[in-house]
């Protein structure tokens, strides 16, 4: 858990020192980045390589729908970030269960590697 905090601290410092160059008391909490991070780790199925790929996907979703990068004629840039959030929500929702994937691919449980989720998260 200490290492986890270490990585999270680096992530926040990257955001502030490498991009924003400023900080307000509630910058990090309002930007949802921490929660997106959890989503990325889940999508990467808690493996290092998978996490990189998932992070690239989410990063592409975020930057691709930002007001700066989106063509006005393709999609309303004011709406696009929310569409991104919806997509991310649906992705995480589908990642949360392997029953659907198992059904769709016609696989049996057990053929897929069991998702290793941290035990002991218990009742939140």
């Amino acid at each position, binding site marked *: 858990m200490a290492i986890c905090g270490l990585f999270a601290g680096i992530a926040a410092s990257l955001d502030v020192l490498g991009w924003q160059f400023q900080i307000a008391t509630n910058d990090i909490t309002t930007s949802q980045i921490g929660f997106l991070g959890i989503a990325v780790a889940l999508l990467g199925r808690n493996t290092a390589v998978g996490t990189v790929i998932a992070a690239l996907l989410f990063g592409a979703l975020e930057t691709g729908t930002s007001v700066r990068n989106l063509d006005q004629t393709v999609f309303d840039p004011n709406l696009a970030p929310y569409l991104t*959030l*919806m997509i991310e929500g649906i992705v995480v929702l589908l990642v949360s269960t392997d029953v659907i994937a198992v059904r769709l691919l016609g696989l049996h449980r057990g053929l897929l590697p069991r998702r290793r989720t941290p035990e002991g998260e218990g*009742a939140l």
Partner: protein
Amino acid sequence: VTPRRIAVGGIVLAALAWFITLPPIVARTLVPSVILAVGAVAAGVYAATRDERRFGITAAALGVVAVIISAAMTGSSPHGVRSVFAWGALISSMLVFATPLLYAALGGIVCERSGVINVGLEGMMLTGAFFGIYGSDVGHSWVIGCLIAAVAGGLLALLHAWFSIHLRANQVVSGMAINFLALGITGYFFVAHYGTNGTPPNVPQIPNVTLPLVGHLGFIGVGIGSVNLLTWLGLLLVPALAWFLFRTRWGLRTRAVGEKPRAADTVGLPVLAIRYVAVVVSGMLAALGGAYLSFGFGDSFSNNMTEGRGFIALAAVIFGKWNPFGALLATLLFGFSTALAYRLPALSGTLATLFQALPYVLTLIAVAGWIGRSRGPAAAGIPYVKE
């Protein structure tokens, strides 16, 4: 005189040390506070060395904290202290901040008692906030707004229920997904429907209940004289839910499903159906809490306006030990600290930020087992698979 009583006395002394620097007394020197706080620390140390470690350390720590806060109080102008600690206004804004938390926390209790973790409370509140004000705007009535809020929150909860009960998803992950989804859906419809202007200014709001005859009660009268209808309803819901959970047949069944679903199933209870109902009810309650934010206390919607209140509500569930009355106490405490945090910048900005962190600190202390065991329903988070 047991060591525990001495420690409790110490805690009272520490509270007194702070209290005498506040209205109506407003002591201007630190001396009496320090004397009281030293008494608190001494009592704490005495108890801690005689097998009452928990109470003793609490009393000693509170004594130290009391000195620091009292120093901040005596160091600032008496006018400032009087304006920040106007008890009537403080109580009424405590109720304002506690109400949405209370609804979401009660929802969380129902849900977790039935064995489903609901991290999606935040999203359900947000959905209630937006669709509530939308319904109130379109239907020209706050009743319709409340109904639509409850339906929208219930539908989102139904999605969570389907994933966590039927598809046996990881409930924490599914709840997180619900939060993202709600953030996206409400933001999308908000911008698509209202554009950059925001919600119109004349949306019907949930009315305040103005009590007659409370004007004579001094600061309490100021505090509860004109409080929103949803606040009173929420306060009534607390004993109602406690009665349902601990005194009725279906409450017992709900708890049984949350503790030992296998046993509940063996005696013929519809485990999955009970869980579905509990999750949907929790979504509806959380949505009402959100509705209070957008058109009860406030009169407009803004993106992500719940700002983590759902998570504080989860903390209140834990702090209140999965009991409605405990949750009420926790939300009132959290509401008080938030109300204080909003009024404190007049005195000290840093102190205000510290008070904003109080709910989280208290929850950490609660989870660490400092206030006795805080243990959730045994089957919470575990999908039930029928044999």
